[in-house]
């Protein structure tokens, strides 16, 4: 029998709601069938904890006396450059920013031990962060430089604003070349020596709502240990990606832009990370509840790792050159076993997304909902779906001619 979101929220308020994680839902659907599962279960919780480079924090650092206009100036947080092209004291720090004097890949592979993601972790942990800035000075904002320690508690506002999180499925990275390569998918051994993957599979948020029937703009979510919201579809959202017979995308497809109050968050769920030879980033904990409104949603949340396939892509040639070559598809069940077969070789697999933490996020969200601390919200607008025609395009290829230079 179909349910409404309001009926589910009423059950949450009355303490009668039945919640399972997406992992538990696999067994529920196997046992009761989609119809029985839809009757028995009200909410399925999901979770993922992986590196998500398109993440960052927006903050208002307050006005010093006398005032300074950081906008148009230069701002560093623990020596990591932050974006200040906004009003006087609004600052955005992106996860992949690194100090100007970081050696980067000058000695290859670089270590990238501290970047924007680490600044965000430090702030969330309540540790003090050094703000240093220079500005040009105006009549109303005369100050030209400042250095001060700041803490999250003292900021007027601080919120995570991540333009792209929660990729619906992702590549499995391999390396066919003769040397080890260092990528955002980790260290890849030569000659198909390793296969790295990065998804929570059956626990991953958008893999449990493949057609975006319940997740949309305004969906209340678990973000970094606090409560956040889906605010838009994420950058590179590609709902038209190829799907299997159950509607599950067979590669990267939908994405989410999310926002949440950093002051509620916990550094356990926001971790600065370094990828050797690649750069710095932020590991983000994200969890989304899926209301089981009907049989179809029950069936989709019950999809298991063996029914979700990921494309195996060579990161030594085709990926950097943007050639759309897929070696083969493998299931998350195979990936989690520890080895896959590709091109006649047995390749050991390595996850980059933490499954135990994904389970913990889905479990925490489940407790919040059962405990009446978290109600589900209806989206105010849907995410563009497979029929929207939305596709991820390349960068325009229009080099400037001589007349354009310096314009």
């Amino acid at each position: 029998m179909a349910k409404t979101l309001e009926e589910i929220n009423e059950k949450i308020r009355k303490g009668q709601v039945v919640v399972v994680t997406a992992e538990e839902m696999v067994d529920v659907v196997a046992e009761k069938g989609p119809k029985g599962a839809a009757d028995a279960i009200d909410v399925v919780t999901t979770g993922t904890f992986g590196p998500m480079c398109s993440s960052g924090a927006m903050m208002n650092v307050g006005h010093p006396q006398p005032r300074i206009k950081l906008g148009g100036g230069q701002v560093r947080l623990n020596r990591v450059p932050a974006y200040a092209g906004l009003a006087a004291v609004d600052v955005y720090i992106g996860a992949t920013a690194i100090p100007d004097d970081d050696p980067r890949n000058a000695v290859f592979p670089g270590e990238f031990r501290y970047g924007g993601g680490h600044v965000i972790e430090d702030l969330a942990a309540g540790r003090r962060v050094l703000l240093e800035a220079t500005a040009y000075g105006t009549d109303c904002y005369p100050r030209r430089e400042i250095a001060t320690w700041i803490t999250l508690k003292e900021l007027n506002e601080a919120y995570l604003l991540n333009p792209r999180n929660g990729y619906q499925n992702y590549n499995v990275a391999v390396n066919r070349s003769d040397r080890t390569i260092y990528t955002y998918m980790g260290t890849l051994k030569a000659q198909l020596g390793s296969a790295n993957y990065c998804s929570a599979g059956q626990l991953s948020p958008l893999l449990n709502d493949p057609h975006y029937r319940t997740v949309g703009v305004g969906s209340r979510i678990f973000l970094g240990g606090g409560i956040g919201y889906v605010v838009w579809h994420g950058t590179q959202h590609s709902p038209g990606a190829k799907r299997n017979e159950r509607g599950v995308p067979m590669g990267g497809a939908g994405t989410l832009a999310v926002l949440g109050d950093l002051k509620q968050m916990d550094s356990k769920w926001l971790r600065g990370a370094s990828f050797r030879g690649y750069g710095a980033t932020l590991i983000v904990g994200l969890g989304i509840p899926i209301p089981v409104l009907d049989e179809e949603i029950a069936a989709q949340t019950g999809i298991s790792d063996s029914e979700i396939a990921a494309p195996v892509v060579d990161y030594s040639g085709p990926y950097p050159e943007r050639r759309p070559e897929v070696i083969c598809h493998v299931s998350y069940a195979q990936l989690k076993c520890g080895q896959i077969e590709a091109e006649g070789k047995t390749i050991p697999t390595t996850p980059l997304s933490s499954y135990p933490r994904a389970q913990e996020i889905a479990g925490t969200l489940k407790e919040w909902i059962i405990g009446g601390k978290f109600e589900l919200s209806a989206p105010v607008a849907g995410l563009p779906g497979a029929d929207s025609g939305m596709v991820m395009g390349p960068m325009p290829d229009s080099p400037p001619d001589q007349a354009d230079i310096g314009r």
Partner: protein
Amino acid sequence: MKVAHRIVLHFPPAATDQPIIYRLSKDYDLVFNILKASVSPQEEGLMVLDLSGEEADYQRGAEYLRKHGVQLQPLVQDIRKNDDRCVDCGACVGVCPTEALTLERPSMRVLFDPDQCVVCGECVPCCPVEAMELRF
């Protein structure tokens, strides 16, 4: 009685130009298998090795090393997994050559078995959250 130990040797700069391991083998009848070595003239050196032989010979060999200013340390103290930092992602498992780092299935937790570790150090720069620590 035969004994076998996996140990870390720290060589003072003055000892790095002496054939110490050769002497261990020749004079004390110990069998060595070098797992890792970083020894340069006039610098502090480090060597990880399996050393085996008769208990009495091993003790005399160890005494010989100490006399030459070489510090001995059981190997397990050298690579540590900081469980407060580890997020159980698994990135280290792929680079560990000896399966000292493995994933427990089906929990997918990262396990570290110091007995299997040869202190190659690959996991240290590979860990995204600096949970693997190399201690000298």
